[in-house]
């Protein structure tokens, strides 16, 4: 049987909260795990005032991850397999490589952005009168980093 690093859903209705756990893959979602490595709060919250840069800076929306990286590295080292959502979180923290699938999706999104931009540029050139509004909105939307 495979040991997995996966999420166990706690919290209330419409208010999810996850434990990041190490468990046997066949055991129930909320059964007692081998170890609780951390938590993941998927509901974005405003960053606390103590963690913003300048005193008056606007709050950013952040999702909270708490994790014991040493224990996580140990479990990864002995062959525990992260589930897809956990893989995503671990890749953000740099503990595992980004998944092939996600790389592909990012590449596709980047290409779509390029096409979109090219289309509007062509259209603007065609009409001659450059509508500043639409180009401004397009250039504002930051493209996903393909790397």
């Amino acid at each position: 049987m495979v040991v997995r690093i996966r999420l166990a859903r706690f919290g209330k209705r419409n208010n999810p909260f996850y434990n990041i756990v190490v468990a046997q893959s066949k055991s129930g979602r909320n059964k007692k795990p081998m170890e609780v490595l951390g938590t993941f709060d998927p509901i974005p919250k405003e960053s606390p005032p103590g963690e913003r840069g300048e005193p008056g800076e606007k709050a950013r929306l952040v999702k909270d991850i708490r994790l014991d990286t040493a224990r996580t590295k140990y479990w990864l080292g002995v062959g525990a397999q992260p589930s897809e959502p956990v893989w995503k979180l671990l890749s953000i923290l740099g503990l595992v490589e980004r998944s092939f699938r996600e790389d592909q999706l990012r590449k596709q999104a980047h290409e779509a952005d390029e096409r979109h931009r090219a289309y509007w540029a062509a259209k603007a050139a065609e009409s001659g009168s450059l509508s500043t509004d639409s180009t401004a909105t397009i250039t504002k939307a930051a493209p996903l980093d393909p790397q």
Partner: protein
Amino acid sequence: MFAWLQGPGRGLRHPLKGSTNYLGAYNARGELVRTKGDAQGKRTSLAKPVRDDLDEEDELEAIREREKADNTEKSGGKKGNELPPERPQDLRPFPLNTYFKSQPILSEDLREEIWRRVQQDGSNIRIVSAELGVSIERVAAVVRMKEIEKRWVAEGKPLATPYSRAVLSMLPTTPFSPGRPPIVHEPINDLRVHPDTKHQVFVPVSESRHFTREDAGKAFSADLLSTEKRIPHPELVELEKDIVNGVEPRERIARARERMRQEEETRQKREEARKKRIEESVKVFNSGNRFMFRFEECNAEAVGKDGRSHKGVGWRYGVPHEDRKKGQVKIPKYVL
């Protein structure tokens, strides 16, 4: 009721300006007791023209001006048809309940002064509290509320000035008069009851032993400080000790300043350590989409061997979640 409305209650239809309007201040014939001697029981009034045509930002100024005028008039002694200040009996809203006394609130001037000293002069709120005779919590609250008020004025938001004016005109207030010793608004050094001291303790002590407040604290709980360290203004005790020991005034002030400086230093050190800890343990990652990820390191082994400790990370297993239970504090108790 109608008889009362026609008779003694008649005068209360038009509330007095610059005074409380409690029933306790009137006698059975509807006469204001404290002016009975000099004005034959006539309702005298301090009524001043209330300017309703002002902008809301100007209205606060108007209130302050009015209060200043009131203060100067009061200090200037009795004039024509001026009301004498309220006696303790006049501060009872319910005439039959002699124990209920209307407590004064901070005047607009005093609030402005508190804000000025803390935010503009950079005084410690503890010093401001001791100087003006307002409790530390109230000083902090006034500063917070004043900040909000000033922000709202800057943003052009409407203030509930008529409401504030009405309340201030109906309740007794603690005025601020610069240049004179401040009027003590409330007791500032009250000891809060510590939960550890709520039970009786019988401690046998030999007669030869000096049983001090320090020991009394320890008798209740091993780490409970003595009374003079738990009060809101322990520095006043130190100051008083210096006075009793006959320390020169100049030396006394120097010592007090030094103590204050040390205290501020430790506070700053603690604050810096806290910030450093946050900086080290918390990292924010940009995942490329609209949300950031805030990562904090934690210790998975803090749950202990039985996996039930409160210190452990995450939702606990096999323990009911008591968030619906009575008395659970849901608002944050501290700020990061």
